[in-house]
């Protein structure tokens, strides 16, 4: 049965106020279109989990969607500070729970594989362990040194963007694959957005590339260019200029609010947002093809 629906329908049906949300993608394939739709629909009190909150969560915090942040690195990648999240944390307006990258990703790995926690080796940097009571010591049952345990993360909803998927949510992705698969398997519901919707036969030509199977996916949405200002490998480049601009915009509440009004609230969907960016930006982000050598699966 096809799971193909509009993004507004997917967000309305599968994201509830108060949910824990994981918008996947380590600098690549960040699902901005879904983030913007969550803002448009005025979702509230969300716990936003992501290794790197990035601009997507800065914007969602600015729009008042969030109650809490779960993270391992808050920065504007390659630019500097993530101003809105940072000031919300400094002023006590946002609760938070913090891990290292490995801790955060291990939490998803536990959640994705049905385990209650994941062990990690110690690092001797114990201040985070003291600051976050959910990070525990664990005795090695085989007699080795103590280990660190982090609890499984099972978000209510994960949003994952991919290059191509069929209408059932069987998805191909490549390039930086971050924590996409782990987030999809860890979450109770998965909203998948895709650059292209292809036939199942096309997915079946390259089954090794199917990192996310349809069986864990709740909804599939066809959203080309969904990641801007992030990128989709082979489809369009990262808009570094926007990351730099956001550093300016986010310095004032007023400018942030007018940006949200103009680019999120006053655009009806992501297609309109992309169109509004204009031809110059589209051309700047265009990328020349670089094909891989095809693999031969064999006819059996």
């Amino acid at each position, binding site marked *: 049965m096809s799971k193909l629906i509009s993004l507004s329908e997917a967000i309305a049906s599968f994201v509830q106020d108060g949910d824990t949300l994981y918008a996947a993608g*380590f*600098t*690549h394939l960040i699902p901005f279109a879904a983030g913007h739709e969550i803002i448009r629909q005025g979702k509230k009190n969300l716990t936003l989990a992501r*290794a*790197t909150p990035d601009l997507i969560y800065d914007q969602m915090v600015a729009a008042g969607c969030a109650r809490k942040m779960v*993270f*391992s*690195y*808050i*920065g504007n*990648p*390659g630019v500097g*500070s*993530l101003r809105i999240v*940072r000031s919300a*944390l*400094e002023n*006590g307006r946002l609760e938070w729970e*913090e*891990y*290292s*990258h*490995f*801790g955060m*990703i*291990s939490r*998803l*790995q536990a959640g994705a594989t049905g385990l209650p926690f994941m062990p*990690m*080796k*110690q*690092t*001797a*940097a*114990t*201040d*985070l362990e003291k*600051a976050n009571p959910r990070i525990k010591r664990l005795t090695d049952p085989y007699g080795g*040194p103590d280990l660190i345990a982090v609890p499984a993360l099972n978000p209510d909803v994960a949003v994952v963007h991919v290059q191509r998927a069929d209408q059932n949510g069987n998805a191909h992705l*490549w*390039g*930086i*694959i*971050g*924590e*996409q*698969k*782990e987030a999809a398997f860890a979450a109770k519901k998965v909203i998948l957005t895709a650059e292209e919707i292809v036939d199942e036969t096309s997915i079946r030509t390259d089954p090794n590339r199917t990192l996310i199977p349809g069986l864990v996916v709740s909804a599939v949405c066809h959203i080309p260019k969904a990641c801007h200002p992030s*990128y989709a*490998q082979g489809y369009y*480049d*990262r808009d*570094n200029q926007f*990351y730099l601009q956001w550093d300016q915009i986010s310095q004032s509440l007023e400018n942030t609010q007018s940006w949200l009004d103009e680019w999120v609230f006053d655009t009806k969907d992501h297609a309109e947002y992309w169109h509004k960016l204009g031809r110059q930006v589209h051309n700047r982000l265009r*990328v020349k093809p*670089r094909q891989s050598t095809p693999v031969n699966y064999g006819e059996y």
Partner: protein
Amino acid sequence: MSPLAYSSSELMIVNASRLLRDGDVVFVGVGQPNLACNLAKRTHAPNLVMIYEAGVIGAEPARLPLSIGDPTLISGALAVCSMYDIFSFYLQRGCVDVGFMGGAQIDRFGNINATVIGADYSKPKVRLPGSGGSQEIAAWANRCYIMTPHQKRRFPEKVDFLTSAGYLSGRAEREAAALRGGGVQAVVTDLGIMEPDHSGELVLTALHPQKTVEEARENTGWPLKISDDLKETTPASEQELAILRLELDPDGLYLK
């Protein structure tokens, strides 16, 4: 700028690059560490393998990467894996020789703070980005290097928050923790190089040309010891500067 005049950033990048050995597997960050690694690869360490925490192994970036997840790191790389894989199979397993670290504070024993400024974690005076990959890199890479401008506020006697372990309260404590990695081996600044002594304390072991011991002392937050065998670093060569300026960072984004 005459050909052999160079900026503080260029000086740090060139000196950091010389610390890398041919065949090293390096956990690279964007910005200056990325330039140091690419420079080493084009000069004395052609077999350097660059790993990025985004899950890229053997990257050969065709343009200057502007973020840790720049798509240029992927095209032409040897392998790409998930974040869980890069931190577990590669780093925790022990496949990484060198890690480059940064942080707002680096203390007397090479401990790093990238989390909060102020005594109270729950009410931070300044909220910094947090660990990212650095907590584990500092513990498990065989050798760690730090590049940072030499300023008193960056080099306090003791970090406000221990994000990543240097030698803790001294080399003995790190050894007792039985971490696989050897810890910070050198801190490259715009004044010179500090290295840990037998106790794990960072001492000044080299000065860049025209820099003075007094400058280094004034800009360090603890009574800085000077090595008996204080050296002067070799100036950046024409070749090194040409590679940085013409090939690696033609717009000078990280060289100023």
